[in-house]
């Protein structure tokens, strides 16, 4: 996590273009999200001070528009199917296992930013139940004990940045 001061520098860069324009808040939030992939709370606090706008005003806007994200998107997105077929075939158990391995609740991203855990209604492959999907790839007939293996594939391989 960055300290407040690091943000401060970058923020003034992003602000330069918009600071004096009327109605700039949404455009500034766009710049921030483009840069970080989400709008960090720390930054909203700073922005509030810089623009002399109450934090509540900033959050009022952030939460109204679907486009703005308050949390960093994970590098890999895991979707657990909770359709009826998957549900009956043990999807809740799979989800519990994922939660305990990753240490996050559904709809959130792990601390290291690697995984984002989502629950979806039906992936349309009931015949393969239960299924999970990671980055668009479907893993079928998943068993509780498979989870750790599947996940570790993503943690082990360090792609060159």
């Amino acid at each position: 996590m960055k300290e407040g001061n690091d943000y401060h520098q970058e923020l003034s860069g992003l602000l330069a273009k918009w600071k004096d324009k009327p109605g700039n808040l949404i455009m500034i939030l766009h710049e921030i999200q483009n840069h970080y992939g989400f709008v960090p709370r720390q930054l909203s606090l700073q922005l509030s001070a810089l623009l002399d706008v109450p934090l509540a005003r900033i959050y009022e806007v952030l939460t109204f528009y679907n486009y703005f994200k308050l949390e960093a998107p994970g590098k890999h997105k895991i979707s657990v199917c909770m359709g009826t077929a998957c549900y009956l075939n043990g999807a809740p158990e799979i989800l519990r296992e994922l939660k305990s391995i990753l240490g996050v609740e559904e709809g959130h991203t792990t601390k290291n930013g690697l995984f984002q855990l989502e629950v979806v209604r039906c992936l349309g492959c009931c015949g393969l139940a239960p299924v999970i999907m990671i980055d668009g790839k479907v893993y079928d007939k998943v068993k509780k004990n498979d989870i750790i293996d599947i996940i570790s594939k993503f943690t082990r391989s360090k792609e060159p940045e």
Partner: protein
Amino acid sequence: MDKKYILVKDTRRAGSNQTEHFAGLLAAKIQASPAAEAVQVVRAADIGFYDQGLVLKFLPGGPVYLNVSEADLDRVVRETVVGGRVLEDLAAAGTARQLRVVLRNCGVINPENLEEYIRRDGYRALSRALFEYTPDKVIEEFKKSGLRGRGGAGYPTWLKWHLTRSVPGAEKYVICNADEGDPGAYMDRSILEGDPHSVLEGMIIAGYAIGANHGYFYIRAEYPLAIERIGKAIEQARERGLLGTGILGSDFNFEVDIRLGAGAFVCGEETALIASIEGKRGTPRPRPPYPSVSGLWGKPTSINNVETFANVPVVMTRGGDWFAGIGTEKSKGTKVFAVTGKVKNSGLVEVPMGVTLRQIVFDIGGGVRSGKKIKAVQTGGPSGGVIPEDRLDTPVDYENLQKLGSIMGSGGMIVMDEDDCMVDIAKFYLGFCVEESCGKCAPCRIGTYQLLKILERISEGEGRSEDLDRLRLIAQAMQKASLCGLGQTASNPVLSTLNYFETEYREHIQAKRCRSFKCRDLLTYSIIQSKCKRCRQCFLNCPVQAISGDREVGFYIQLDKCIKCGKCFEVCKFNAIARE
């Protein structure tokens, strides 16, 4: 002279793709003809037609040939390429019904090149307006043209400009509404990406007519290419003196900025859009005062749609009378539609007002893709309604569509066949509105949710006999009491499906039956023993082991275990699974 292009694509579904082969042949024949230098053959990745054999598309503006055979190529080169004549027997039916006014430059010019736009009469309208017309005369010209807003409601453009002009004050604004959010609609996106200068020119002329010196493009953030192209167009125009102070040497000043939407459907509503440009939550406010009196920053503001602006330069160069010569009595000009759904040739079409829905779907769209019977056409997205098959001969204009319980809307047109369940469709649109309702006023926030709950109940087989009346009651209350257009029209999909397809609703409620097999909970699967070959496929594939039995006694579906996923129906090769 501009180079001409011929796009080539083999669209046959079966067999090997012969595009390369045909393109090579055609290029060789053209090389040997007198037109060798002027024409280039291009292999297309997608040409907008499917399963129509070899397709040739002549650009700019030329015909489209379908099902061309190798033997035709000589004829094509001799007659069309060299002679410039259209071979009627090969030409795609329906292209004749289209009239390109708004899309005149799309796909013809390089949208990032100002010179190409200027070469096609670009910015001539602006210079004419600035030097030959007073602002009042410009508005007069638009009154003559009969141009109405293309965003959906069809408010006369001249009147909007006139009202904004009449309000005293030096500071006024023009806004281009490019927050196209209907599911299934992409007309505005195509115009912004394909011909950004025409929209910009329209906006500058509007600014001149109203007496505004500042314009805003409000574009949704989900359209990055449109944003980039409009940005480039603005830069280029500024460099050439088409924007800024003293435009083209006149004393008119105009500046343009871009503001981005952030994923809120309600921001297409004008007062919500203004709030969003001001950097606030995009919630609407009561009208009056209308934006023409008190709009952006409390100043008089005119908000026009992308397609409306793209029409403006044409009206100015060709005159209001010319424009008024196209279309019906009350709806002038053309309309761009995004035809999608179960139609054979889906894509953008531009037709004169007054063409019938049937002509659009069948003559231009090529009819229903599956070969099944058409059930209805949906226009206007979540604010519109369905128009049943027996009304398809209605000429398309603002009034007619409204009479049918739908709206023109921005131009989404979704074709539905017998496989589409009307309750399901209504549920889909309502789900969208529940998500997108801003929550400010109760009729919309609560109404949409309650409508959705009732529809869900009906599609799950829990419908009650009084539900239809209740749907109507809530829908009417929403129409009357909602604060903005979103809420006032959100019930249209329910009302129109209920109006034309009440029997389908009743079947869901009383007989617990969905004739389109869309509402899962109402289906029952069973095995037709006389057809069953006991191959065990259903048994092996059932995800919940709801099928029991063996090869000796046959197989049976245990209804209490069945989750109605349809897997057995899919895998059975002998049509031995009954679905009802």
